[in-house]
Structure formats: C-alpha cells, structure tokens
C-alpha cells in the first residue's frame, strides 16, 4: 500500500512539472535522481515515484500543448487538433479526450500484462538481430512515403509543376540532412557543460518543436474564446477504439524499438489503421504517448524480459533492478492507480487553465511561454543550450514554412545513432571532421 502512495506522490510531482512547457521525461529522470540523492529512500519506493512522474507527464502534460501551444516530440502529433478545439472554446474537452485516450492505453497495458512475460521475451529473442535494418527501414519508409503538398500546382509547365510538388519534399529531405549533421555534432562534441551533459537533448527538442510552434502562434491575432468546461465529450466509441488501439500499437512499437519515438510510432500506426479525423488523432496521439513513455518503463519490469528502453528506465535502473513477478504486479497496480489519479488531476488542471486563459490574447500567452521555455533551457543547459536551441529553432521553422513533416528532424537527428549501431559512425565522423 505504501508503494501505491509513493506512486501517487510521483503523480503529484509529475503533474506540477508537466504544466511547465519544454520539460521532457529526460529532465524528469534527472530531477528524479536529484530527489533520490537529496532524500535517499527505499529504492523500490523511488521507482514508484518515477513511474508516477512519467504517468503524470503522459496524462497531465497534454495541457501544455492544448492551452499553451508548446508541443514536444510526442505531442506535436496531436497539438493541431487540440489547439483547434481550444479556439472553438473546447480546450477542456480536447484535454479530457486526450486523457481518456491515455486511460484506454493503460487499460490495454493491463490487459496484455498477464501474457507479457510470455510474448515479449519471444519477440525479443527473434527480433534482436534485426534491429538495424528495421530501424533503417523506418527511416527509408518515412522519407519515401511523404507525398507532395502543393494542393494542385497552378504552374503552366510540367517542370514548373514538378518544382512546386518537390518544394515540400525537397525541404523535407533538406531538414532530414541538416538535422543529421546537427545530430553528429551535438552527440559527439561537448557543447553543453559537462555537469549538464545528460540534458543535452533538451534544447534540441525544444528548438525543433516548442519554439517554432510558439513563434508561429505569436503572429496569431486571436484571443482565446471563453472555454466550455462541460463534462460532455463528443467522442464516438469508434474513435475511441480505433484511436486507442492504433496509438497503443504505435506507442509500443516506439517503446520497444530503440531510437524510435512516439511521433514516429504514431505515424506508422496511423498509416496502418488509416486513422482519420481530429478526435481519432487526439485519442491515438495521447494513447501512443502514454504507451511510449509508460510502456518503455513497463518493459523494464516484465519478468524474463527486463528490457531497458527510454531515458527514465535507463536512469531508474541505476537505482533499482526489478527482479520478481511480484515487483511487476506491484508496478502494474501502481500504474493503474496512478493513471486514474493523474486523470483526475488533469480534469482539475484543464478546468482551471481553461477558465484562466479565456479572453487572453494567444500572442500574450505565447510570449509568456517563450520566456518560460528560454528560462528552462538556460537553467538546465546554460548559454550553450540556448545556442543549440536557437539553431534547432531555425531548422524547426522549415517544416511549417514548406509544409513538410516535422518528424524528419527527429529522424535526421537520431540517424547518427542508427549509424553507430551498425558500426559506421566513426567513418562518417572522420569525413565530417568531428572525430
């Protein structure tokens, strides 16, 4: 019982941190270790706190993308419909639909828990020697499968039309390439101060996703309309079922495969199940996000598997290594209780923010969010982090301008890791002169 309480404490801490735009689970992991070092306690209890934090981030954290327009790599997938709802006075509803999607994912996680110790080890045994080509295959597919977004070129010549069509595709490939170059540099040269090196990816994600979105929102002259806080949510069972299952499988694929993120997994799941419509995107996005973060943590606890995936699992595994089946079931119980608790907190937080932001200029909110983001990046990574963030912001502005996929930034940035896995990193670094 005490461990469940630890989980709820984690949810409270995570909820407070989640409403701060730009914070990422990697920061959470760092903060978690800090808490453990300052207030040493029972390692298993500490794990429950970590779990609570990550559950809260996955559920309560959707408010930052809905009300503040500051997405990260996992919420950029659903920030579009969420903000659309916000501008129709239904921001609270959007947050709650996301929360319901996340709860749906927890339900599926609980349903597969009894067979997870049978299925996942088999899956791991068979797929382990194939990670490399599967990862490269994901990159190849995402680059090949983007379709032109010229909306019917009006150019008179064939060449002109071809040029129009390839403007967005070319920009997408350019974004991939330039992000890859950045990845080589950031991951191989000590830019961020050594004592904060574990946060070196934070300014990249903030620059790629949050800041461009906030900057683009700043040109908006809209005021946020009065928000309805009615508890009637217009989401069909079909959207719930399709969104949750697609999100879960996408999120679990991302959680299981190294390097793949929730956004990438979400695109795969969306394509596989022909996800359509705003509500399905919201449900699927939030289910995928929770499965990605909590699922990665869950994999560490599955008996006979003990797969370490994701920043939180890596960091927490330094403190405690789950050993027994009772550890696993304790964790599953804590996940279930924490998710419900986080959902209740989400309802209160979303209701509170919905009332607070009504009538406020979106521009003012965006400016405030930008200041918070800058302060957070500076606080976590120093001046050097701000420089990285600024560079990434420049890259992050290309996709909205050319209507190309934002995910190309992530794919490019992590591509050096792919190359590392197949032993080509050193060769490429020598060519680039980084090594």
């Amino acid at each position, binding site marked *: 019982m005490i461990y469940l309480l630890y989980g709820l404490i984690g949810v409270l801490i995570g909820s407070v941190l989640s409403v701060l735009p730009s914070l990422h689970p990697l920061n959470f992991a760092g903060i978690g270790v800090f808490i453990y070092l300052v207030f040493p306690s029972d390692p298993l209890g500490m794990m429950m706190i970590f779990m609570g934090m990550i559950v809260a981030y996955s559920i309560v954290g959707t408010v930052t993308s809905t009300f503040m*327009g500051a997405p990260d790599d996992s919420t950029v997938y659903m*920030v*579009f419909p969420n*903000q*659309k*709802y916000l*501008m*129709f006075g*239904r921001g609270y509803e959007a947050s709650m639909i996301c929360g319901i999607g996340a709860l749906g994912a927890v339900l599926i996680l609980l349903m597969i828990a009894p067979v997870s110790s049978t299925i996942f080890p*088999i*899956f791991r*045994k*068979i797929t382990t*020697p*194939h990670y*490399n*080509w599967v990862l490269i*295959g994901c990159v190849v*597919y995402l680059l*090949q*499968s983007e*379709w032109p*977004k010229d*909306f*019917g*070129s*009006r150019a008179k010549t*064939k060449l002109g*039309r*071809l040029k*129009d*069509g*390839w403007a967005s*595709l070319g920009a997408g490939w350019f974004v991939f390439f330039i992000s890859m170059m950045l990845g080589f540099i950031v991951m191989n040269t000590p830019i961020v101060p050594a004592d904060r090196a574990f946060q070196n990816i934070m300014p990249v994600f903030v620059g790629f996703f949050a800041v461009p979105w906030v900057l683009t*929102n*700043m*040109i*908006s002259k*809209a005021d946020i309309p009065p928000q309805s806080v009615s508890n009637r949510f217009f989401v069909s*069972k*079909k*959207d719930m079922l*399709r969104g949750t299952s697609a999100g879960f499988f996408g999120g679990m694929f991302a959680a299981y495969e190294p390097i793949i993120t929730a*956004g990438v997994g*979400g*695109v*795969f799941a969306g*394509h*596989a*199940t*022909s996800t*359509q*419509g*705003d*509500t399905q*995107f919201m449900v699927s996005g939030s289910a995928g996000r929770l499965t990605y973060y909590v699922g990665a943590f869950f994999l560490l606890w599955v008996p006979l598997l003990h797969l370490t995936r994701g920043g939180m699992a890596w960091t927490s595994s330094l403190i405690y290594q789950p050993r027994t089946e009772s550890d696993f079931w304790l964790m599953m119980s804590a996940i279930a209780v924490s998710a419900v608790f986080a959902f209740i907190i989400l309802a209160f937080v979303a209701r509170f923010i919905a009332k607070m932001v009504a009538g406020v200029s979106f521009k003012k909110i965006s400016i405030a969010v930008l200041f918070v983001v800058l302060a957070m990046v500076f606080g976590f990574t120093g001046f050097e982090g701000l420089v990285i963030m600024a560079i990434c912001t420049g890259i992050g502005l290309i996709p*909205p301008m050319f*209507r190309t*996929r*934002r995910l190309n930034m992530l794919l490019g940035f992590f591509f050096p890791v792919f190359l590392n896995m197949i032993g080509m990193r050193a060769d490429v670094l020598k060519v680039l002169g980084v090594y």
Partner: protein
Amino acid sequence: MRGLTHFIMGITVATFFKSLVTGAILTDSWLILLGGVFGLLPDTLDFKFLVYVEKQDVVIDPDPYDVKPQEIANKIADEITKVGTMKPGEMRRLQMHTMKLGPDLWQSYSIYFNKAKSQVEVKVGPHATTSGIPAFGTEPPADKALGVAKFTPKLVDTHGRATEVKGFGGPSFGFLKKKDGTVEVVFIPFHRRSGHSLTMGIVCALLGYLVSQSWVVFGVIIAGWTMHIVLDTFGHMGNNLFWPITKQRTSGLYLVSASNPYWNAFTVYSCIAIILWNMNLYNASVSPAYTIPGISALGPAIYLFFVVAIPWAIVGAMYYWYKQKTKGARPFELFAPTTGAVGMAATDSAGVQEQEHYYEIDEKPKPSIILRILGVAILAAIFVVLFIFGPSW
C-alpha cells in the same frame, strides 16, 4: 492500399529470401529493404513524378469565393463534345483544382457525368475540412449550387458516381475517343498506368541486376513490385499490367477497398506475423540464441492459423458488427482552424493526413466471380512458392 501496407508487404516478400535475412544479421546488409522501397515505388512514381508531367489540355480553377457551377459544367461538356469530333484513340485531359478557403477549410464540389441524360452535373457542396468532414450549414443557395450542361457524344463513364473535389489537389479526367465513336471518361489518367505495370517492374529488376550482378536482388525487386500490383488489383481500380503492350487500365477485382482501415490493418499485421516467422526460421542458421524451434516446428499453416486467422476473424466480426450499428452516424468533428501555428499545421500533422486514399474509384465493369477467385488464388500461389522455395534463395 496505404503506402505502409505496400512497403511492409514488399519487406515481407523480401524476408523469404534466406540469403537476405542472414546477410542482414551477419553483415548488416540493407538489401532486404529493397523489397519495401520497390513495393512502394509504383505510387512514388505516380504521385511524385507522373502526376506533374501529365499533359493538361484544360484547367478548371474555380474561385472559391464566387463559384460558378454552370461555367464549370459548360467547360467540361464542351471538352467532351470536342473529343467526340476527334480521331479514335485521341485523348484530351482536364485538370480540376480544389478551392482553398483557409488552412484547413475547402469549398467542396462534385462532378457527375450523367450518361442517361447526356449531361454534366456540377454541384457545389458545403465547406469541408482537409480530412473531408463537411461543415453543415455552409451549403450555397439553390441558385448557386448546381450547374448542368449537355454534351453530344455517347459517354462511357467507368466510375458511375459523382467525383467529390475537396482538399489537397484536385483530380484530372481524360476524355478518350473510342473506335465505336463513344467518349470514355478516364479518371486520373496518369495513375496506375506505366508506373503500375509488371513490365516496368521487370525493367527495374533488370536494372537492379545490372548494378548488383545478383539474381537475389532481381528477385526481391520484382517480388516487391509485383505485390504492389497484386494488392492494388484487389481494390476497385485496377492497373495497366503489361504496358506498353496493353493500353488501358483494367478494373479492379473488388475484393477490398484501398482505404479500408480493417484491410490495411489486417494486411500490415499479417505481414508482421510472416516477417517474424521468417526471422525465427532463418535466425536458426545464424545462432540458436535467436530462434524458438517450437514455433518453426508448427509449420506455417498452423502458425498463421493461430497468429493471424483466429484473432483477425474475431476483430473482423467485431468490426462488421460495429460498422452496421453505426451506419450513417455523423462524426464528431470541428471545422476551420484559426490562425498561427494551427493553421500552418493543418496539412502537416506529422504527415498523418495523406491524399493517396483519395485516388481510388469504383471502376466498372465489376469482374466476374471467377476472376476474383483467380486473383486470390494467385496471391495464395505466390505465398506458397515463397514459403517452399524462399529457404533456398
């Protein structure tokens, strides 16, 4: 089918090649991905190249704030009449454009070729989001909603239904003069022609062979490409299988719908199950640490029965039941986003909204039941060959 379905199907057939799978483990070879790349290439060719180099004889680009359906109908009818006077085999192409009202808002309209009355009917509909959800109440007044224009030649319309024009790029129509004096309406004439022919697949595979000097590369390219053609043929719109020998696109087998979520998810899942089967089978020749002999011992038929057939029969039954139950239910959707980043992201959304599913229509005539059974038999035969001979490739 969706792009991912084609890609993963290509990967699936590639994993039957033992040398590719073991090569991927032992030498980090990426050749296995050729199956996926060439499995998706036919659509890549069509929608990234051929769509742009298609000749446009007439372009209709209506003003979204002052739509004149009668003018549109007149232009289309004039084209059909003009083609009626041309030589057999000649075609004129007409490009329709969409009407953008905002970042995620479009003015919808539809074109219907009414063969019985020899007239083109253009109807202006409500505003719609990029994902095609209509904004009820935005329909135009009756006097601005319909345009009708007569044409003289006898028309053959293989589609038979109104074509909706909403978001993204608009469709194109070809009007082809036939030997019997009729004019055939060819929907998006650039699609599923040379880029979706088996001959083009052979050309690509031969190029692959010339570059690699490997028959395995030839095999994996042709297998990936062929599976794309086979899957597309299962839909409502067929392919021009032996271009340039054959000139026309055939109708599909009407077995599945390209955008149907159930069939896409089923195909992707089945492909993953087969990939895992092949991985497990071929891993054994690399290291016993990566294989579970008990699974291979089941044999592919029993494995697929338990892993694919049973779960998907259950999902299929549930899907059918729910589809019947919710038939005609209106979606809970919102319209027209506002300004700022939301507007700019309307058609991005991490690449989740694609237009490819738009490009399938019901082409007639519907093939006979024998042809349709033959289609399934061919697919089954391909997999039987792959299961039997794959381990020796």
